[in-house]
């Protein structure tokens, strides 16, 4: 038993540099992994508004926190969109309301990836924007 223990300790001493380097490599791998999960390849943009309107090629508009990313996709978090609701009276104009994405049949998570080719343009929403105010209140 003691002999086996000594052999193990001896092996560890002999390979201590390799073990140290391997442990460092694993730590670097894990740090890079979790950093990338947090970072999500987003490109930081300073001084921008908390919410943006993203106008898409098919005429749809999404509202939320827009992030430009490295690669083919941009990202919107906490997505809202405008929905027109018709009442029973056909002569009346349909109501428009702001809906938070997530209640659809596929119950999407809060993160939406959009190919940059599908984006026409992005605008910041001012603090006075009723849509931005609604989203801020909705998050509280």
């Amino acid at each position, binding site marked *: 038993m003691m002999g086996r223990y000594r052999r193990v300790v001896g092996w560890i001493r002999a390979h201590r540099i390799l073990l140290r380097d391997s442990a460092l490599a694993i730590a670097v791998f894990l740090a890079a992994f979790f950093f990338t999960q947090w970072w999500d390849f987003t490109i930081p943009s300073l001084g921008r508004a908390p919410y943006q309107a993203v106008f898409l090629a098919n005429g749809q508009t999404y509202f939320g926190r827009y992030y430009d990313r490295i690669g083919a996709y941009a990202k919107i978090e906490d997505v809202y969109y405008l929905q027109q609701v018709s009442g029973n009276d056909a002569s009346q104009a349909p109501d428009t309301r702001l809906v938070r994405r997530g209640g659809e*049949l*596929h119950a999407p998570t809060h993160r939406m*990836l959009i190919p940059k080719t*599908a984006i026409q343009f992005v605008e910041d929403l001012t603090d006075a924007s009723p849509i931005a105010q609604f989203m801020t209140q909705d998050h509280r």
Partner: protein
Amino acid sequence: MNLYDPERDRVRIAGRWLRWGLKWVAVPAALGIFVSGNLDAHALPLLGPERETAVLFQDGQAYFGHLDDSGEGGTLLLRDAYYFADAKGAPTGLSVGLVKRGTEAHEPADGMRVNRDKVLALEQVGPSSPVAVAIQAERDIDHESASVLSLNRRTVGSAQVLTLQRTAAEHDIQRGYAAATDQLAKLNELVLPVTKAEAQVISQKAVADLRAVRRNALAALALAFGTNANDAQAYANATEALLEGQTFTNEPGVLLAPDLNAVVSRATQLYTQVGDVYAKQLTEPKTASPSPSPTPSPGPRP
């Protein structure tokens, strides 16, 4: 005497450090970024839950499946794909129904190559969303087993999910039947060109045919769940008795697994066909001759 000591050469020392840093720091860091960029920490391969992606197209279509977007080309690969088909007016109470890709006339093989330029957005499907539940139920109905060793493990519906789906499909079939008989009753309240006695005979035949459609739909439902033909008929008879007289009007709609949705859609089509045939018999005045009369009829035909 040579004073040069290679162990103290700064260039050599820097080179050694660079080689060490490349091997033990830069390569693991690059590997970590690459692996993390292609993985979702909430749905890790082998261990995590299934990762189902919604691909929303610019033309409004939505597809769901296992997405492979690892290639740098402009094409995405979507496997095990499902999509929404229009189902307005269906007894499910939902405006769409779920269809499994591969059942079309051209019977495409698994794996849709999607042009990224036509994609509007990508979203993760909620694991307990109606779409995910319907897909899981479909896999169970198709006798697919949950994969154990896979980068994106397939989840199969539980017994509870299957029971909920079967009950929802039964209620949908009954709702369609109730709507068809309701339509027939409303028609009988109108002033008809046939006598009351004739209208009663036609209506009785119509109800009998609608019941036959309902019974066959229930049997088809049982067959979809893998029941043999004899048991399916027994199940249909027993369930029909339980459903009789119920309308389930206030029940929320349930997104059905594609195979169950196909049974309900077929039943709905047949209810409409039967209703149309007997509505025609009730509303068309009887003519003496089967050939069309050359003289215009005195009143507008209903």
